[in-house]
């Protein structure tokens, strides 16, 4: 195991402040971020080599992406995903594929491509379209309840880089932890070697403003062969119904005749005297017959569609409001009615 030292050129002052306490008590830890994710390289390195057993994709691809179904629901920054998009450029996104991920970004200061949530094990302009390059392999391992989904970049090359890189991401069912493992990141090219030109970390949408990001390093050669970095979400807290402290209002629901959909927003206001801890989720219960929600965060069986309330930071302070965009199908043009239940804590 190694102790990663923060590089002053790559870690803004705010991040240094955020992480200072963690470094004092835990030399090889990082975080937590505003959501509560932490990262550490004090975990065993145990490379799961699936190059011979997994399904290979993106062979010969440069700037290629592929959408993959997840074998289990994976929760990332409060949203449970059933699919992801993997890129030859050492990047994974949720909620869609990026149009352009060839140029890396500073997760602490810039939005991610398409403002999509990202896992960046080794985000750089990488390519499989190089003689002798490999492919990206993926495979589900383990038994239901404790499955792992492995995505492995095998013999991927940096642009014009002479040597191949091998690294992988392991997503773990239930714990929703994320493991980056580096088998070979010494490329023999100073611009690539050990992550010298890569962004490594995780980030949610709107990361620069909400602080939901942990950037392990950017353009700093601090990775090494046989290294593992684990990102861990905050402990799940049982959701508490806080509806009695919430006032719910909405905008008008405007009908779009082209898409035949209704759109608007729901606003919650903390009318209590104390802050409400995030994550905060609203559930639209008793939704009027024939009305269905489009694009909710998920659906609670027997309850209705739910939405993670964005932009509330760590709490919704007394008197503070937060707004969630909503969209509906309503083919009978009935009055759109529902009862909002608000929860604090993770589902």
């Amino acid at each position, binding site marked *: 195991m190694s102790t990663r030292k923060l590089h002053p050129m790559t870690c803004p002052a705010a991040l240094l402040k955020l992480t200072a306490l963690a470094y004092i008590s835990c030399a090889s830890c990082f975080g937590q971020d505003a959501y509560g994710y932490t990262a550490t390289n004090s975990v065993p390195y145990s490379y799961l080599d699936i190059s011979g057993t997994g399904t290979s994709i993106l062979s010969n691809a440069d700037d290629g992406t592929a959408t993959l179904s997840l074998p289990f629901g994976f929760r990332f920054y409060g949203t449970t995903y059933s699919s992801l998009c993997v890129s030859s450029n050492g990047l994974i996104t949720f909620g869609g594929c990026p149009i352009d991920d060839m140029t890396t970004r500073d997760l602490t200061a810039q939005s991610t491509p398409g403002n999509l949530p990202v896992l960046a094990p080794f985000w750089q302009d990488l390519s499989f379209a190089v003689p002798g390059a490999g492919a990206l392999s993926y495979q589900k391992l383990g038994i239901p309840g404790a499955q792992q989904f492995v995505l492995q970049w095998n013999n991927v090359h940096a642009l014009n880089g002479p040597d191949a890189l091998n690294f992988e991401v392991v997503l773990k069912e239930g714990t929703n932890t994320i493991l980056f493992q580096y088998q070979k990141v010494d490329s023999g090219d100073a611009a690539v070697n050990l992550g010298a030109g890569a962004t490594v970390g995780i980030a949610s949408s709107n990361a620069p403003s909400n602080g939901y990001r942990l950037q392990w390093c950017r353009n700093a050669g601090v990775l090494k062969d046989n290294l593992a970095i684990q990102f861990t979400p905050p402990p799940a807290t049982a959701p508490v119904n806080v509806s009695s402290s919430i006032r*719910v*209002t*909405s*905008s*008008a*629901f*405007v*009908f*779009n*005749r*082209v898409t035949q959909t*209704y*759109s*608007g927003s*729901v606003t919650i206001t903390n009318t209590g005297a104390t802050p409400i801890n995030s994550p905060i989720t609203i559930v639209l219960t008793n939704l009027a017959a024939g*009305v269905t929600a489009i694009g909710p965060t998920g659906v609670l069986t027997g309850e209705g569609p739910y939405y993670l309330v964005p932009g509330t930071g760590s709490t919704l302070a007394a008197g503070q409001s937060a707004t969630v965009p909503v969209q509906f199908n*309503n083919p*009978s*043009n*009935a*009055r*759109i*009615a*529902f009862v909002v239940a608000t929860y604090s804590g993770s589902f």
Partner: protein
Amino acid sequence: MTISGFTKLRIVSALFLCSPACWASTIYQVTIDTSSQSGNNGGIYFQFNGGLDPDPASVSITNFAIGAPGSLSALPAPAGNGGVAGSLDSLPLVIDNSAGNNDYLHFLTFGPTLLFQVSVDFTSPLTGSSGSTFSFGLTADDGLTPVLTGDPNGFNGQISYDTAGVFTVATLGNDAIETIAPVASSGVPEP
């Protein structure tokens, strides 16, 4: 008074003067320069929808005028959904927020200008969980394709009020050709 697309005009209506219950009205004059469409066939579309549990409300459209050589078309016939009464041929056109979608489409031939007044009326005090929004849009002769706007919902302008009775007005199309100006605001006894 010209209001740019992203400049929102906020007007607190006179509803707070009404006690214990009355009918508050706020009137706007809408003017659209349609000279670039003059002579073309098209349509005008109105929509008045509430949100979650809105208070009863309606909009009344009066003083509708199209500059010559424009005129309302008899065919195709006007079409409406939800709480619609009257027509542009037989003013006032009244649209309430009783259904999920309450709208009205009337075909016409554009002239250089298009004018109308809209009175937004609701009971006071407001007790619902949402306000309502009046939206209007110009269309091509298919009655659907938006004209003179890039708004994703196809509207040229909106007049909204929230649960506190605060109005927000926005032009959504070509700001240079549209104005939405307040004319009057009053609280009167509920009819």
